[in-house]
């Protein structure tokens, strides 16, 4: 169990800070206090089954005891009784909704019981509430958030998480498969990878990690090996194209075209190709691709963004603004859309609206530190404003 060792030390630390001194609310305080003391003694002496039994008895006396709920939940988790741990932790969090580590254990329990959407939600809550200085717990939470984002087809968010993890520590071999899955946009957990795809995913993961860590010497060789070994697999040419987009736009376009031949209904490949075409001044084709992408995925903000940019470049400013406003409505967090709108509003004399866009840009760039230079997924993740 990934979390087990760190949990033991975490429990010990938590024990010292909790609360024999806390005010207890038992209806029969003496009995409850005795039970809690005995339970804590049993836990300290590693008589865990007995401790669990005593915490349960204590909760009969006082169902809202934070200490009993927390220690019982954590001990059940440690004993891999995840369904029960989950139920106890839920009760604890109903009282202490600001307890980041408890959200972490709840999310991990739900991961083990395979309630993935809920696990992701609660692990992200743990990240939001904070986990103090418990670095190992944080890493475990980050890792599981990353793989769950991929499992739930939020590949770009998963790649962002990977980037954060890679930026904050030494290369970690356990991130190779998650990186490969997110890069190839395959919604599996590492444990669900089909055996005959494991090599391909590992190779893609190695390339993605090399790119995200800016180890340029490895990047080209890894991607080249990937493309040569798996030329017909969906996702491979898209990933290669995304890795080339910044420095080798012509080659990137060729890769996106290859991807579309293999995955004809890929909206994302169309968006990325449209982005390259706009940069190359080929607005008609870019617009056609963006419009196809909108048809395939009407809610993909980046498709509307590309359509808007192409229309404005072709001289249809009002049509372009309309598309950009749709993109903004679908995803207000894309800095590039606000840049586009700022320019378009300014160019058409709509000063107030331009001012609002400027504030939005400042807000976005203050709240996100755009650490990565290049997106391996949706164009909307590009941190740079359009030229």
């Amino acid at each position, binding site marked *: 169990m990934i979390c087990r060792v760190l949990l033991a030390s975490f429990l010990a630390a938590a024990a010292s800070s909790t609360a024999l001194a806390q005010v207890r609310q038992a209806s029969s305080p003496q009995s409850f206090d005795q039970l809690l003391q005995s339970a804590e003694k049993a836990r300290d002496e590693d008589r865990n089954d007995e401790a669990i039994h005593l915490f349960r008895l204590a909760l009969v006396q006082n169902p809202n005891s934070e200490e009993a709920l927390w220690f019982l939940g954590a001990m059940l988790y440690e004993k891999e009784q995840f*369904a029960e741990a989950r*139920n106890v932790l*839920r*009760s604890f969090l*109903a*009282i202490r909704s600001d307890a980041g580590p408890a959200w972490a254990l709840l999310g991990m329990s739900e991961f083990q*019981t*395979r*309630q993935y*959407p*809920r696990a992701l939600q609660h692990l992200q809550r743990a990240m939001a509430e904070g986990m103090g200085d418990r670095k190992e717990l944080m890493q475990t939470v980050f890792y599981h958030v990353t793989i769950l984002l991929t*499992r*739930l*087809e939020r590949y770009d968010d998963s790649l962002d998480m990977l980037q954060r993890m890679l930026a904050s520590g030494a290369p970690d071999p356990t991130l190779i498969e998650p990186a490969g899955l997110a890069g190839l946009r395959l*919604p*599996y*957990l590492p*444990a*669900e990878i*089909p055996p005959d*795809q494991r090599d391909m995913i590992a190779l893609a993961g190695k390339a993605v990690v090399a790119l995200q860590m800016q180890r340029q010497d490895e990047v080209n060789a890894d991607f080249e090996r990937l493309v040569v070994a798996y030329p017909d697999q*969906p996702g491979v040419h898209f990933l290669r194209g995304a890795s080339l987009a910044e420095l080798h736009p012509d080659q990137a376009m060729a890769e996106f075209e290859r991807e579309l031949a293999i*995955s*004809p*209904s890929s909206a994302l490949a169309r968006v990325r190709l449209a982005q390259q075409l706009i940069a190359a001044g080929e607005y008609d084709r870019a617009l056609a691709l963006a419009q196809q992408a909108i048809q*395939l*995925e009407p*809610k993909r903000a980046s498709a509307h963004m590309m359509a808007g940019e192409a229309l404005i470049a072709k001289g249809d400013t009002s049509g372009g603004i309309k598309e950009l406003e749709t993109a903004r409505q679908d995803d207000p967090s894309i800095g590039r859309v606000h840049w586009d709108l700022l320019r378009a509003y300014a160019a058409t004399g709509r000063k107030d609206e331009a001012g609002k866009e400027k504030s939005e840009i400042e807000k976005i760039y203050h709240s996100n530190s755009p650490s990565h230079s290049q997106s391996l997924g949706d164009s909307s993740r590009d941190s740079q404003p359009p030229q």
Partner: protein
Amino acid sequence: MATSAATSPSHFEAIAKQAETARTQDRVPDAIRLYGEGIRLRPSWADGWWYLGSLLYDQDRFNDASSAFQHLTSTSYRGPAYAFLGLCEYENRNYEAALKSFRAWAGAGWAGSPELVDVALFHFALLLTQDGRPVESLYLLASVAPRLGDVPELSEAMGLASLGLRYLLENYPPELRERIWLAGKAALYAAQSPHDFARADEFASRLEKRYSGQPDIHYFRGTIFTFENKTAEAEREYREELTISPHHSPSMVALAALDLEKANRVEAGELARHAIEADPENPEAHHLLGRVLMENGDLHDSLSELATAKRLAPDNAGVRAHLAMVYAKLGRSQEAKAESAALLALKNKEGVMAPLTVKLRGAKEGAH
């Protein structure tokens, strides 16, 4: 007799008011405590049970929420209470009880807010798949697919049902993940409104390429082709399935249906009989044989087959329609009228036991 302060109407009303205030101010623990106090003072307070159950459910406290909703199954909250009860029991892993509650919910008219209906339908469908009723499950899932769009959990559920895998999302073997994903995406895109056949085909063809030797894959591919009116391709796939799974009753039924459409009654009849041999409990096989016999003028044998189909699938409107026709041809007008009346009553449930193609068509029509 004097009334104590604790049970006086004014005290109850004060608690009820405080509970409502706490709830509207999002003070959830206070609201739960106050609603609990209110129902202790007045156990018949349906609104109190309702809000208590809803608040507990929102906090993922499914055991406690379940107890609250139990109190509502004989009140005006009956319909949505059954939906919530099913959801709580699902979360508590009491799957048999959950299925029973969802059936009661359906019987009470599928009541609830649009969000509750979507969530309850989804979980009802999951349980139907696990219970070995993937066609009914797909009917429910396809009915929400156009509205919900490309939601990963929905496609996963559709993948399980499409391949007839009797698992829940939480318990299927990890090695099935890829095929469930691919089949689910194909089914989900085919069920969109308007249909996205291009993407459905892309995923179905990836599935077929990866798992061409596995059971149920070609049958699934065939159902997508049938839905696209590509009957030659569909027929090829159903026949391919039979080379892999020689006793695959649904493929025989599908082929028989195609033969019947082409007025090839001899082969349709043979296939339907083989399907019945392979799975005597397959209602569609009996239904099809009944139709073939009816068209051959063999009304008594037709009646027998259709009656078997009715016994196996009492909610199948198509079976009732053909029964009404056979009774009419036999001059048994009272029975014909009764079946016609049953058909009308089932109108809203039409397609519950129909093939995937019909389900998906139903979903499309329902979306307009």
